[in-house]
């Protein structure tokens, strides 16, 4: 699974961090960091994260 976040859209709401903490996190500076090729077992979590992003900035490719 490939995850892409449009960082131009991201406004640091952090809803994805709640939904998929193994994939999304905030770095020391408070900016979003994420795993771009998470294990397929995390697909439900990542789909949830994409759903709850207020800016709809998360895309799942394949």
């Amino acid at each position, binding site marked *: 699974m490939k995850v892409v976040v449009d960082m131009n*859209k991201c*406004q*640091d*709401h*952090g*809803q994805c*961090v*709640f939904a998929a903490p193994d994939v999304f996190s*905030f770095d020391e500076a*408070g900016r979003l960091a994420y795993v771009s090729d998470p294990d397929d077992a995390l697909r439900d979590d990542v*789909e949830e994260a994409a*759903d*709850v992003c*207020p800016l*709809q900035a998360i*895309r799942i490719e394949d």
Partner: protein
Amino acid sequence: MGAPIVVAGASMAGLRAAEQLRAAGWDGPITLVGDEPHMPYNRPPLSKEVLAGKAPFESLAFRPRASVSDVEWRLGAKVVAADLARRIVELHGGEVLPYAGLVVATGMRPGRLRCPGPVDGRHTVRTLADAQGLREALTRPGARVVVVGAGFIGCEVAATAVALGAAEVTVVDPLPLPMMGPLGELLARALLKRHKERGVRFALGTGVAGFEGDDRVTGVVLGDGRVLPADVVVESVGSVANTEWLEGNGLDLADGVLTDEHLRVGGRPAVVAVGDVARFPNARYDGVPRRVEHWSIPTDTAKHAAKVLAAHLAGADIAPAPFAPLPTFWSDQHDFRLQSFGAPVLGKDDVRVLDGDLDGDVLAGYHQGGRLVGVVALGGQAAAAAAARYRAELLKQPALTA
């Protein structure tokens, strides 16, 4: 092929319901009926980025999951009636659709002021077309803007109008402070101060008695007799549930459509309601059915309702835990954000500053019976992050009534 699940309403809640029905195993046909001509799109930017011209209208479209590529979209079509006993809905124009399951996702429309005066120049913000029209009006040089209603949308639109360079922006509300309902007095007072510092004027504690002007609005007459000159009026005075089409089925439609603890409607397991039209009890709190207009609710309700409906149609006997979402909302205004978790509205009589101070980044805690029931952050990223740290605690709590 059997009858479809008909999803009445093709906005965010309708889309999420269709996606979640697939995720819950329903592989039969799905038909979505929506009165707007557009595919589902994200509404929050309509009062902010899109209104400000920072994001194009096209950027709002949701990307439907691949699992719903085979559903039928009936856009620009409106459900006008339903006979739940016969399992049919009727579209404008007379077409009748039989259904195996029905998802009520028809949402809300803006409430309107009923006082006398011209209609031209008065705007609402709910749809793409609304936002396009309002943007045109706000970007005319020297526009004097009166926003009626100091709730979420009113406060956001006022902030955007100031940023767009409107000559005057005045917010009118019968209550003494902006966003008094969701925030309570302490934060509402801090919010008022921030808006004033950024150029928004307020006429509070008074309603609107009428509009001046012949063909179009030139002024807003307040309840206290003052007249505010206006080229553009924005009415953000609450919303009305689109439930007329459900009348005649013996349902409680007093404010949205009443559901049980699994979002089922009228004791009929084949009918569920999702999104802000659903008036549901939240098992996390007092069990009193309420409609909730937060952005997170379409997704939360769709997930639960789709599971329940798909299981019923498959003849499966499931007994999920009652629907108990943790509410969350945000609002971006000027250069700051409001971010909430939990149910601050239940704890407005006991509000404490948990972190920061009211002039900077601040986090307020709302308590009932001494227990934290919600938090609201006001400020920048640090305040929102502080609110997020309380989310786990709010999630862990058992129901207040337990």
